[in-house]
């Protein structure tokens, strides 16, 4: 090569430095300084920024709403993982194994909500649950089950479970595609061998399909967990704003409320640190659990 070392390094710097500077300013610095803010009583103006050590963390531990936000987040994580994985797996097997002619149609339709904005999804589903106009209540009436009709998002008991359906609705397409990709890569010879051995469809699913798409299952579960812990608050914000009476507050929506509505930026940052730590711990535990699961096959 005719290139000198100096030229090479200049080019490398040209490629890497501007991008890294932007990344450092707008991603790394905010994350670390969020950590830093969590040790301050900070209401938005730098004159009033007072170092208070671990006081925010002590407040966090004693805040009666915090345990509920954590429970709500993990409720959404668990119900979404179960709901999405069962349905996506069922659809993926149906669309790949059963030679349904119109399979591409379903694949496209089911993916469709994945490209919609969370605001649009949230508003749309607020209407689905609307006590007077909503599809859910009119559906129940139609079936003669008026007794079950209720103001879903206005009920302290039902508001949080009501958020699960739109999350599944919005999420299923992506995981369906991932699982379909995994199943498509399984060699047909496995199924032929299973067929000769007289394995039923059900047995083929448990003995062939599931073990061989386990990598995709694992990635999907991790994805759902990460995106729920990091992003469930957006749907909450749009659909219920955390209400009624904090019944749907998750960690992120509570952070938003503390920081950007009540201007407790220091305490908001402390909640952010908690979200970060809980997400990392959850992902680590999950990876350990699912690794052990794989060894059994």
């Amino acid at each position, binding site marked *: 090569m005719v290139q000198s070392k100096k030229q090479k390094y200049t080019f490398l710097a040209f490629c890497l430095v501007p991008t890294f500077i932007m990344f450092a300013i707008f991603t790394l610095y905010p994350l670390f300084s969020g950590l830093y803010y969590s040790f301050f009583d900070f209401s938005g103006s730098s004159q009033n920024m007072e170092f208070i050590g671990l006081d925010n963390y002590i407040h966090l531990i004693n805040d009666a709403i915090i345990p509920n936000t954590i429970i709500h987040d993990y409720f959404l994580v668990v119900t979404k993982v179960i709901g999405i994985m069962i*349905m996506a797996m069922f659809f993926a097997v149906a669309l790949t194994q059963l030679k349904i002619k119109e399979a591409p149609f379903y694949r496209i339709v089911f993916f469709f909500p994945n490209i919609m904005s969370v605001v649009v999804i949230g508003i749309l589903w607020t209407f689905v649950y609307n006590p007077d*106009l909503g599809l859910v209540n009119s559906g129940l009436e139609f079936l003669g089950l008026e007794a079950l009709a209720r103001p879903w998002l206005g009920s302290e008991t039902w508001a949080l479970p009501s958020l699960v359906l739109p999350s599944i609705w919005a999420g299923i397409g992506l995981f369906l595609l991932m699982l379909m990709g995994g199943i498509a890569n399984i060699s047909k010879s496995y199924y032929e061998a299973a067929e000769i051995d007289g394995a039923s469809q059900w047995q083929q699913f448990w003995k062939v399909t599931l073990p061989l798409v386990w990598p995709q299952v694992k990635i999907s579960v991790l994805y759902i967990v990460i995106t729920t812990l990091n992003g469930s608050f957006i749907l909450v914000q749009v659909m219920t704003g955390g209400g009624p009476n904090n019944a749907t507050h998750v960690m992120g929506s509570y952070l938003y409320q503390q920081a950007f509505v009540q201007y407790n*930026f220091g305490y908001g940052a402390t909640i952010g640190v908690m979200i970060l730590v809980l997400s990392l711990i959850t992902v680590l535990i999950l990876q350990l659990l699912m690794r052990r699961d794989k060894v059994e096959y």
Partner: protein
Amino acid sequence: MKRSVGEILGKTGIRIPLILWTIAVLYPIFWMFLGSFKSNAEIYRNPWGIPESFDVQNFADAWTNYNIDTSVFNSLIVTVIGAILTLVLAIPTAYAIERLKFRGSNFLFILYVSAMMIPMVLGWIPLFFLLMEFNMLDNIFGLAIVYAVSQLPFTIFVLTSFLSTIPKSLEEAAAIDGMSPYGILLKIITPLSMSGIITVTIMNSIQFWNEYFMALIFLQSSENYTLALAIDFISSEAQYTNAWGTLFASLVIAIVPVIVLYAIFQRRISKGMTEGAIKG
């Protein structure tokens, strides 16, 4: 092989959940489209039926009375600038990481990619004050920069995996012919990876067009609202004004460009998403 009765029944049976889910996905969306043509009185009288007439009054109201025109324009600017900036930043870095092996290239890649896993909500508080200091708070260009950087990890991730499939021989030939590395990046690598670039750009554009939460935090005055914020605003107004028809019309305005993109690039979008998109 002859099909048994049971098999045929089984196949019909399997279609029932597929059809039910199709209805569950499409019905609310159709309903939104239908609602956008109904007057408020009609929405109450006949919430789930076909509109009596296809009146575009709601669209006109949304467009002029609720300033959707400004928001569409803002969203367009944020999306275009964000998408271009992401590429300008991501292509050279992806090229350097994938092709120019240097000390720390692996570390840099892991650093960028692990940012995809980190909850950014903690960073949004300092980012708010940072933008304030740069005089970019309540500014759609500031938002575009934040968007661009937020999609950097995903874009670098997809582009490096795409670049690794391009044969090295062309760049080597160009280098022997005396082309500078800048020329190679611009005239060889970028055109060759156009397919990957288009895929991530569509995905990023949809993401920027749809984004709500950062816009909520970083934008304040209504003339700077993006579509997502404008819709959210109309939605909370509608609690008092009952302007449901207008709300549906603005939802339709927000979703139509995405539907068109999806219709054209359905395969690329699905592929790009499964390669690492993150949805809230």
